[in-house]
């Protein structure tokens, strides 16, 4: 049992890395990776929000939206299939959760808010967050704990990616890049090479 969770965790970090395998969350990945400090802040915020929203959306999908999910209301609801609403529900949950998390963090931990605060509003429109929930819908997890492990794992994968690229970008500022490639261009190419590196994890059988 524990083994399955460990497998899922490793798989979501390395083999199905949000950035390198699916290109999710590329916008904030490119925009906020100019310095390592901001990269780390954004990375933690993503881990935090993914770990909360994926299991939450799992519950909503499983008990409200999926075909026959409303059985618990009574037999006449058993035929309802509301899964076409999943997109709207997921984004609503994410937007409101982000707002809530921001308020809670601000109230109880001003220090954490100081470092995460400015990144939290950005997260509502980070594709990695919605992507996590949509992948959860496709993958058909058997329980909420699996969904939570998956959310946490993909968050850690995203964190790794942004920290790595931020560190590389800090160094690359000192090297002699051809002028048209400066900034965006070279970042794309480096990300491509890193993604090639990450593909080597695909050989791992879990």
């Amino acid at each position, binding site marked *: 049992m524990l083994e399955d969770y460990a497998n899922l965790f490793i798989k979501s970090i390395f083999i199905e890395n949000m950035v*390198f395998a699916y290109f999710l969350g590329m916008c904030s990945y490119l925009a906020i990776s100019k310095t390592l400090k901001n990269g780390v802040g954004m990375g933690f915020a993503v881990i935090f929000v993914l770990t909360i929203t994926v299991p939450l959306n799992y519950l909503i999908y499983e008990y409200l939206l999926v075909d026959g999910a409303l059985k618990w209301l009574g037999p006449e609801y058993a035929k309802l299939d509301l899964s076409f609403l999943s997109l709207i529900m997921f984004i609503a949950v994410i937007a409101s959760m982000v707002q809530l998390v921001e308020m809670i963090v601000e109230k109880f931990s001003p220090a954490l808010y100081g470092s995460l605060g400015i990144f939290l509003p950005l997260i509502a429109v980070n594709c990695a967050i919605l992507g996590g929930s949509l992948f959860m819908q496709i993958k058909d997890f058997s329980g909420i704990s699996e969904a939570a492990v998956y959310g946490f794992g993909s968050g850690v994968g995203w964190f790794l990616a942004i920290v790595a690229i931020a560190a590389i970008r800090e160094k690359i500022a000192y090297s002699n890049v051809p002028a048209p*490639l*400066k900034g965006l261009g070279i970042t794309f190419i480096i990300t491509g090479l890193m993604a090639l590196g990450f593909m080597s994890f695909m050989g791992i059988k879990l």
Partner: protein
Amino acid sequence: MRLRNYKINKKKSKNKPLFLFIGKNSEPLFSKKNKKLLSDPLDDNNPITVQVLGICSALAITVQLKPAIVMTMSVIFVMACSNVIISILRNLIPNRIRIIVFLVVISSLVALVDQFLKAYAYDVSKELSIFIGLIVTNCIVMGRLEAFALGNDVWKSFLDGIGNAFGYGVILILVAFFRELLGSGNLMGFQVIPDFIYDMGYENNGLMLLSPMALITVGIIIWIQRSRNNKLIEEG
């Protein structure tokens, strides 16, 4: 002070739309300025390579030309409609909750596209899997709503939406074209590289089918674009 107030008032009244759909009737529908709205995003102000918006969903679906074209059409539909809707509502939306209003409008439109594709083009919708859904968080839609539709009249916003969606599509289709051509020798699923070239020893470059090559292809497109147009080069 009074003078300034007067000026602001004057400006406001000037911007008031005469009619819901077409702001100032004095301007022809395809004036130079409006044409620029349509053509700028294709090159100098491209949403992907210059504004850096909407990369998230752009890259994963460029292995073949067909899903890329379907994706482009969906984005054109969503952007044009959402820009028009937000532009109609722009004077009614309270500033503080505008992001949520955007999200509601966009996600209903995307759900519409999603259901439509599931009904009429099931294969392609299977192939695109979650990426149609991810148009919701595609920064390009949100970014244009925030930057343009919230402050311009309906017709202009419509043109801006179409223009930016095309700019997005151009990059998508370019990347998909090269990846499919070099990676599998096909275009739109038909073989285009004749057999005798294969007989002479040509081989498909399997690397182009892997996801990292999408990033590198976009990197090269940016390189070419910026060396053609020096204004776009970044400092530092």
